[in-house]
């Protein structure tokens, strides 16, 4: 870290800072040298922090009115929607906030994939990020169970039943998870407890994520190491603060549109039917942000192998810094990787789409091909590409974008401006 020594001006400030260096921390955060060429894809870190805080604050208010009981949960949600002052607003922000959170996290992850932000020396930041993502999925899934609608109940049944695929102890584990012989009140209360706990775990990991980020500093669109502080950097405050703020406001406009005008479009209608263990919905589908993994799960005919495939699809990401053998970070200078990157984006979107469709016929075939390609990308294409690919010459610094006299000057410049 290129932290200059900070001394508070006032006597009290100095006295306090010697005992607890909060002022030094504040100074570090405001002066933190940030690459000046960060584009808007980099604003999603700030947006995600906003999402987390929004979920925690609205969640606290909801928890004051919600009743975690199988007979009362659904009624208490309707009570919030009708009789609690602005309860409808708080609940719609919380429910749509989950979707916005995932929208932002997917952009954040795919930004990292494009610009190679997971590569050395940022592997720990990346792995912490993957753990946060896993916890987010757990929190979102359990949160979806709490209203105790039909999709809540049956979603919980399907997902917890996945554990029964584990040989020998599977059934026992499922009973243990449920706290009984089916999804019922004990399941609901423990899900509520965990749903309340996980956001604070995420908050702690976010602190570690940012701490780990502040050691090497931000990656940047051209993916080179930069001197800090230098002509290539700007202090975090005010430059990045105002830019993140601007992007956050744009994000909030989209968010507000969902909350105020189409608050239920991202949810499933069946979740407004109270949970009924005797009636199974025609199609059990998870929320949109889990659909790609759901598609992978269903594309494998064997239950156990399906679960293994689904979990591998997530955990493979943690190994990414070592699977990608290329030394060049940014896809700007990797003409082939850039093509494969967009194929992967399309692949994941296709997986999401078939995840929402019944697992039969053509859909199942597409799901299988897309699943196979997903693993092919990480296990074969990325490692091989690092050795085979002819990368473009990379510039020495941000202020001098391209080495003088390079034959690829025009291409590199063109690419850089495209990705801004």
């Amino acid at each position, binding site marked *: 870290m290129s932290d200059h020594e900070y001394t508070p001006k006032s006597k009290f400030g100095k006295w306090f800072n010697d005992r607890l260096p909060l002022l030094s921390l504040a100074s570090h955060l405001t002066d933190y040298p940030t690459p000046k060429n960060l584009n808007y894809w980099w604003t999603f870190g700030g947006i995600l922090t906003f999402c987390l805080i929004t979920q925690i604050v609205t969640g606290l208010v909801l928890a004051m009115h919600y009743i975690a009981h199988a007979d009362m949960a659904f009624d208490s949600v309707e009570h919030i929607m009708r009789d609690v002052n602005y309860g409808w607003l708080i609940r719609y922000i919380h429910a749509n906030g989950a979707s916005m959170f995932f929208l932002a996290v997917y952009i954040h992850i795919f930004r990292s994939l494009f610009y190679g932000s997971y590569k050395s020396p940022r592997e720990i930041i990346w792995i912490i990020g993957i753990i946060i993502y896993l916890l987010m999925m757990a929190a979102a899934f359990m949160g979806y169970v709490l209203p105790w609608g039909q999709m809540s109940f049956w979603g919980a049944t399907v997902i917890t039943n996945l554990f029964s695929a584990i040989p020998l102890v599977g059934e026992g584990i499922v009973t243990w998870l449920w706290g009984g012989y089916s999804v019922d009140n004990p399941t609901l209360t423990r899900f509520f407890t965990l749903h309340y706990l996980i956001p604070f775990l995420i908050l702690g990991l976010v602190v570690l994520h940012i701490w780990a980020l502040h050691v090497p500093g931000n990656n940047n669109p051209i993916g080179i190491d930069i001197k800090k502080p230098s002509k290539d950097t700007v202090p975090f405050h005010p430059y990045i603060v105002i830019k993140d703020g*601007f992007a956050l406001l744009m994000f909030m406009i989209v968010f507000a549109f969902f909350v105020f005008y189409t608050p239920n479009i991202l949810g499933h209608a069946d979740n407004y039917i109270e949970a009924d263990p005797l009636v199974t919905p025609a199609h059990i589908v998870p929320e949109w942000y889990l659909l790609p993994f759901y598609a992978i799960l269903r594309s494998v005919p064997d239950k156990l192998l399906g679960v293994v495939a689904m979990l591998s699809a997530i955990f493979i990401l943690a190994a990414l810094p070592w699977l990608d053998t290329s030394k060049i970070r940014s896809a700007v200078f990797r003409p082939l990787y850039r093509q494969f990157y967009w194929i992967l984006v399309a692949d994941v979107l296709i997986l999401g789409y078939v995840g929402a469709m019944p697992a039969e016929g053509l859909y199942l075939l597409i799901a299988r091909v897309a699943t196979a390609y997903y693993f092919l990308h990480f296990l074969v294409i990325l490692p091989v590409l690092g050795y085979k690919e002819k990368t473009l010459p990379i510039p020495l610094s941000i202020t001098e974008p391209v080495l003088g006299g390079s034959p690829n000057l025009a291409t590199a410049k063109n690419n850089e401006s495209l990705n801004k």
Partner: protein
Amino acid sequence: MKNFFRIIFLIIFLFGFQHNSNAAEKVEYLKTDWSFKGLFGKFDRASLQRGYQVYTEVCSSCHSMKYLSYRNLAEKGGPEFSEAQAKAIAASFEVTDGPNAEGDMFTRPGKLSDKFVMPYENIKAAQAANGGAYPPDMSVLVKARGGGVDYIYSLLQGYEDPPSGITLDDGVYYNKFMYGNKIKMANQLSDGLVEYADGTSSTVEQMSKDVTTFLMWSAEPHLESRHQMGFKAIVYLIILTILVYFSMKRIWSRIETEV
């Protein structure tokens, strides 16, 4: 920017694809103008009041409305009956209360704070009275059906004689908008079934529209304030975004890099 458009294109492509495949399976719902749609959508007060009348006179003999209280009928953004009217409506229902000092349950006329009286004691009684099918609670029915208001509106008008080759069991009816076309609720509406106090002619279409509007309100009682607040919030955000944009330009003008 180019990448951004590529993503948008992909998303639109996928949504378009999804839309087409859905359209192939489903029947087109009947369309009507809903006053509550759009940025400034509000309920049509008269339609809500008529819809309440249809609900009470027709639907309420089987369908409960357990999340509504009589006080809601006088609240802002709803049918907005006067308080006196709402009290009179409440008082027209017999409510079981108790136990009293002697330990007995007793009945009394309804009050504003009472929930809508349920047509059946419990689900079993409802099933027993309806050939095994439980008439769903209608409080959030509109939100609990994929097609929403258009679906309910169409369903009420979708009764037909079954096409040849389809035989229906006793107590099962044919409805072209129902999932699987078989429904256990008989056609309830016929022209002139209720007599509207405001003189509107009570065609099946009109009654369907009114009662669906009423159901939309019962599912989303704060829809009007949501739309009003949403408009203010979004205008506020847009103005703030513009201001922040220019501040950002100003601040970044100290650096040679473009934002």
